[in-house]
């Protein structure tokens, strides 16, 4: 059941193994073929290195031959001519060349006609017996009428030899032979030898590195295996889920949460030790019903999470499977201290996981169904089923958002001294033909989904357009703390920084706020002129940490506190404390829910600068405000 998941990154492991095999094969192949490649490269290198001499030798041959097809016969007959030509040969010599000589073939024998090393006053033609390799390349030069370069392997004092055919009237008359020293050859190829060794060493290092990676991978997998898998039952621990949360595509699974009924009693009666043994025995039995692609996770003490793979398993078969598990547990006869113990299990399942916003959301829905099972008598299975009507409604909302049916109404924030309008709070609605849909009908449906942040982006875009048209208009928009750690939203605000001085951001707190990230976002936006306000302070998730950890400019006190301010001592004291705190920290207070004159007067006594509420005006469309 779980073996598939031992290697988390099984693909990476395969890549390592394949790379390892390929590199080993490559090393073997290179090692075997290095002599061939070396030889070829050496000859290329030699050929390039003798370019200068090669070009000069062409000129030398021209001088010796002098366009005379009978030059050979003339040189044989004239020692003076040979003397003169030998002098020319000597001019071509350098420290890398051992000797330069001109040979010719006559009646199957080879003779040296001219020799740069000749010290005799009268140069003689001498018979010459080339080695077998020399003869081979002389023959090749004759056949191809092209120069040949070859490495001298058997003659210690020589490195390599150049044989150049002298062709006159398309016939090879003689050969110019240049013997290079061993030293010159060695210096040319030493770099090549070094580089081929470096390549081999490099490849070996890669093999070693890959070996280490593979070993580390296996070691890591083994460690994780021990961390993730219960060795007694073979099931996953909960930490497997939390570590691989993002990697699991929950929409591929049906999700079920199961809990052993009255297990606490078993622990109380028999002790935890026996309780654990009973638990393991139940788990092992249930595990037999779980297939290879499924996941069976010990979610809590006696709580299990099943992720049952959807492919090729219909809803009906899934329900049958759960029923089999329930029945299996019910049928167990567990022997404890000579007694037979019966246990039952309650299960909650969620089938339409494609409608869940996250794995956690899906588990929560299964948990709701489990709650249903527990409270309906236990030893049963319940299903969390999203109604079709609700599905259709959610899709309609998404459609309205995408088709730019989002509009804003504006409610003024007034200066409590002179009742001038400081700015307007933008409150969004969705226009559905002639009907307006309000946030309290929209947001719960789309909470934690991608569309939640889409709404925020639409609100920003809507107000940026408005502020670009009306340069005297100033608004505040509502964003959640999740929005402000969303890079797309931050980038959108930065992109539209030209309106920053007229757009106040009201942060609505959600649970699990990462203050560090939120403060970082605030610090990124403030330089552009954005002002920050904590919205609904005093309700929901808002707490003192906001005031202590965030660099805010405004604080909007929630209406639930303001509405009781003139008759509630606690609200009174809280507002007083807040106003002192904010004054000392240059934070401007805005009071919501200013419904009547009494509230207004009380707020004035606290010297609270701004207020918002139906006492001043209700939210209206922009066109109505401008009238």
């Amino acid at each position: 059941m779980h073996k598939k998941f031992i290697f988390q990154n099984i693909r990476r492991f395969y890549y390592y193994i394949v790379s390892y095999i390929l590199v080993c094969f490559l090393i073997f192949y290179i090692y075997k073929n290095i002599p061939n490649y070396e030889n070829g490269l050496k000859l290329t290198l030699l050929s390039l290195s003798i370019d200068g001499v090669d070009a000069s030798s062409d000129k030398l041959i021209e001088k010796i031959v002098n366009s005379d097809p009978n030059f050979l016969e003339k040189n044989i007959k004239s020692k003076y001519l040979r003397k003169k030509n030998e002098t020319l040969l000597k001019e071509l010599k350098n420290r890398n060349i051992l000797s330069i000589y001109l040979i010719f073939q006559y009646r199957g024998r080879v003779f040296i006609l001219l020799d740069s090393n000749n010290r005799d006053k009268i140069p003689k033609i001498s018979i010459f017996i080339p080695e077998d390799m020399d003869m081979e390349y002389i023959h090749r030069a004759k056949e191809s009428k092209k120069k040949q370069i070859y490495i001298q392997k058997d003659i210690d004092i020589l490195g390599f030899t150049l044989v150049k055919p002298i062709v006159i009237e398309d016939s090879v008359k003689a050969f110019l032979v240049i013997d290079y020293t061993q030293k010159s050859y060695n210096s040319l190829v030493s770099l090549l030898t070094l580089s081929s060794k470096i390549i081999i060493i490099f490849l070996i290092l890669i093999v070693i590195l890959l070996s280490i990676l593979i070993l580390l991978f296996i070691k890591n997998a083994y460690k994780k295996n021990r961390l993730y898998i219960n060795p007694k039952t073979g099931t996953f621990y909960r930490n497997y889920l939390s570590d691989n949360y993002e990697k699991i595509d929950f929409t591929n699974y049906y999700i079920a949460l199961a809990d052993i009924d009255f297990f606490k009693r078993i622990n109380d009666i028999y002790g935890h030790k026996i309780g654990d043994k009973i638990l393991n025995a139940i788990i092992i039995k249930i595990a037999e019903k779980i297939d290879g692609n499924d996941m069976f996770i010990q979610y809590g003490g006696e709580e299990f999470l099943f992720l049952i793979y959807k492919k090729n398993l219909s809803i009906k078969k899934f329900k049958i499977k759960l029923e089999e598990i329930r029945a299996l547990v019910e049928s167990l006869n567990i022997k404890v201290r000579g007694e037979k113990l019966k246990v039952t299990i309650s299960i909650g399942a969620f089938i339409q996981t494609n409608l869940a916003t996250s794995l956690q959301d899906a588990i929560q829905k299964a948990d709701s169904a489990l709650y249903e099972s527990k409270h309906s008598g236990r030893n049963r299975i319940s299903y969390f089923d999203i109604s079709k009507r609700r599905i259709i409604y959610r899709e309609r909302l998404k459609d309205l958002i995408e088709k730019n049916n989002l509009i804003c109404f504006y409610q003024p924030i007034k200066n409590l001294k002179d009742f001038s309008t400081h700015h307007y709070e933008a409150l969004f609605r969705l226009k559905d033909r002639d009907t307006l849909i309000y946030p309290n009908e929209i947001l719960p449906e789309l909470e934690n989904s991608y569309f939640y942040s889409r709404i925020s982006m639409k609100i920003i875009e809507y107000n940026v357009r408005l502020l670009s048209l009306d340069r005297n208009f100033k608004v505040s928009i509502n964003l959640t703390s999740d929005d402000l750690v969303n890079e797309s939203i931050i980038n959108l605000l930065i992109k539209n920084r030209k309106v920053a001085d007229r757009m106040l951001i009201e942060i609505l707190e959600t649970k699990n706020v990462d203050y560090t990230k939120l403060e970082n976002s605030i610090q990124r936006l403030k330089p552009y002129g954005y002002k920050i306000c904590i919205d609904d302070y005093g309700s929901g998730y808002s707490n003192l940490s906001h005031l202590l950890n965030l660099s805010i400019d405004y604080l909007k006190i929630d209406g639930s506190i303001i509405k009781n301010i003139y008759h509630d001592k606690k609200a009174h004291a809280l507002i007083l404390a807040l106003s002192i705190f904010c004054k000392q920290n240059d934070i401007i207070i805005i009071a919501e829910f200013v419904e009547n004159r009494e509230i207004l007067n009380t707020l004035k006594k606290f010297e609270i600068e701004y207020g918002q509420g139906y006492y001043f005006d209700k939210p209206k469309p922009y066109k109505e405000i401008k009238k």
Partner: protein
Amino acid sequence: MRLKNLLLIMIIPVLGFTNFNIEKINELLSSIKKHEKSIYYFSNNRAFISKLSIPKSRDLNSADIIIFPKSKNITKSVIVNSFEKLKSNKNSIGAIYLKKGRTQILFVEERLKARGFSLSKKYKRYIIKECYLNEFCPFNNIN
């Protein structure tokens, strides 16, 4: 100084002989026959002859061919160590020497025949006519 020179004199011949194609020399010398029989070689140059895997005699008298003789007065068939010596020493049937780093092995056809030696035809590239010892003789007919 004297010791250095002495050492040089001792080492050079050995070093010289390390450049020879010993395999080729062995092959050719082993193939020489006299009246179809194997022949024995002798040389005072122990450094050289020790490298050869050919039938060797203990002394000069019982040898058929002397390799690199020091004396010019030996009447037996000799193999000399230069083309010049091959030319000048009429008792020499052949020469072994280095030219351009290559091992040169030459036998004179007429001299081999006169002394009853024979060499397989496959080695004909190593056998020259007497006239080849003369510089211009081979090219008398060249136009």
